[in-house]
């Protein structure tokens, strides 16, 4: 906004035909509106600050009673027992298992779908396939959880394959979570691959490469930072996913040693503890926020890695 010299007169009248050009800088209503817009944008900043404060205050009360080292390295999670122990390692092992299984499903399938959509599919085919992927992305996680528990775990893993497993397993939760993440990885990777200039594909074809060679050796490496960003965002979603693991992974916090075991993830613990009626300010209540803070910190680091990688590929082409 340029500075305005006060000229007096009816210049401030809106829509007045003779209004001077500088009049637009003078309308007080306009300033108020712009302030309002700015404040709306600032709400997002307040949200982040709010999250940090809301998590940090109870978490600090928690760490006044439990040492950070015991929390991060302890291998027994039993906040309800007396004496209570607060080793978060069991929750982390369950989170690692479900996340790893989900990635084993989502990375190959998501990238396969992305390569097909970006390099092989005709425009019309793509116009049909992409909305179907969007539908998959739109299935509520609680419905995915129901599916994991009643179909994948009970019908497929137990009845069909006769695996030795109980009512819950990190495998069933992880597999379904992987399917849930496919659209995230596929659509972001496809964006990255579509951003690779056509001239690179033409150059590759001119040298005699076929589509597979072009896709794998030219387009894929050129889009790599975007693809890694997509995978990293997938990891973040897998770590933070709550309903599928709360329903299908189990509620016992123990160190998970195999995919057919049940286990409680960090998010699973938060969801379950939230169901109990913990009094505000009690250690039980604060425990919730200590785990929440750990979860937030983990996803924050991962998100920033992803955002930086996306920026890099945006700059490249």
């Amino acid at each position: 906004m340029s500075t305005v010299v006060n000229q007096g007169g009816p210049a401030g009248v809106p829509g007045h035909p003779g209004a001077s050009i500088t009049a637009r800088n003078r309308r007080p209503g306009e300033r108020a509106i712009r302030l309002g817009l700015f404040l709306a944008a600032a709400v997002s900043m307040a949200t982040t600050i709010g999250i940090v404060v809301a998590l940090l205050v109870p978490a600090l009360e928690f760490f006044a009673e439990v040492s950070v080292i015991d929390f991060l390295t302890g291998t027994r999670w039993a906040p309800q027992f007396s004496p209570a122990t607060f080793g978060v390692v069991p929750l982390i092992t369950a989170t690692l298992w479900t996340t790893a299984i989900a990635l084993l499903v989502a990375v190959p399938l998501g990238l396969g779908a992305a390569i097909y959509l970006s390099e092989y599919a005709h425009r019309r085919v793509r116009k049909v396939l992409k909305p179907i992927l969007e539908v998959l992305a739109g299935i509520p996680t609680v419905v995915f959880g129901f599916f994991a528990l009643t179909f994948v775990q009970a019908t497929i893993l137990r009845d069909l394959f006769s695996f030795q497993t109980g009512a819950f397993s990190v495998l069933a939760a992880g597999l379904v979570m992987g399917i849930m993440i496919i659209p995230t990885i596929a659509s972001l990777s496809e964006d990255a691959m579509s951003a690779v200039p056509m001239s690179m594909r033409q150059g590759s074809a001119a040298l005699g490469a076929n589509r597979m060679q072009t896709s794998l050796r030219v387009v894929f490496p050129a889009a790599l930072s975007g693809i890694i960003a997509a995978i990293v965002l997938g990891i973040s979603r897998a770590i933070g996913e709550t309903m599928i693991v709360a329903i299908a992974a189990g509620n016992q916090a123990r160190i998970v040693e195999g995919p057919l075991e049940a286990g409680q993830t960090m998010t699973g613990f938060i969801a379950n503890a939230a169901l109990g009626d913990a009094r505000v300010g009690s250690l039980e209540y604060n425990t919730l926020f200590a785990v929440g803070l750990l979860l937030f910190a983990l996803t924050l680091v991962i998100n920033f890695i992803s955002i930086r990688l996306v920026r890099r590929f945006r700059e490249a082409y």
Partner: protein
Amino acid sequence: MATTADAARAAITGRARGGERSTRSLVFLLLLWLSLLIAFGVLVTLIVTIAQDGAGRLDSGLLTGYSASVPEEAGARAAILGSAWVIGTTAVLTIPLGVAAAIHLEEFADKKHWFNRLLELNIQNLAAVPAIIYGMLALGFLALLGVQNKNVVIGGALALSLLILPVVIIATREALRAVPDEIRQGSLALGATKWQTVWRQTLPSAVPGIATGTILALSRALGEAAPLLLLGGLVYVTFDPNGLLSGFTTLPIQIFNWTGRPQAGFHELAAAASVVLLVLLLAMNALAIFIRNRYQHRW
């Protein structure tokens, strides 16, 4: 001349075609197809199994009954009305806020200023923060205010609004960005102020894009359960929610609750309620796609 060119072309296409049809490329293409096929196969399986599981309970009792201790008498009436209240409130809170924030960032803000760059980074990060964290924010916020009863419609709507706000902002910015600069310049040249240009030209042109993005964001909020769990959304609701301070449960929470019960009858109910939820979501998605195809300007 012509013959050599033809021969050369034949040689090139021949080689290229041979390359496309080598065993390795065919296997590769097959794997690509397979990855899409698995994704879509699971989607179809999910819909079919849930429809089958819930078919027995897709009756009027599902829509009119309240929660009950016997599955035969239970229904999702309170949950459906609760979802309507929470999502309606979420829409009222989110749409003006999200659109205003997007207008600031896209039309007014100096994009090189450090604060605006920080805002942008912050919104990108917020879009990827786990949903359950927003529930903890709402819980902490209500505790800070000293609210004793955390299970209120406005609390749930607050958590869901903050959850989808980044999505609405990002979608609105994209819609605003798609409006060509000539429209703005034309308006400014006719003497309109910057705000008049935004309000009378840019924003109306972007409405279809904003509507599509907002409906998709609200459908995400409709399916979300995790943040509401923290607000004690599992209470046994046997009344119609009737205001912002009313107790509530929502459809996803009700499904979660029924899934956790041991009796098979409740699993059937959970599946039937899932069908209702999926139908609602598909309707919202279809509306969004309809608006996108019907009203979106092609400049």
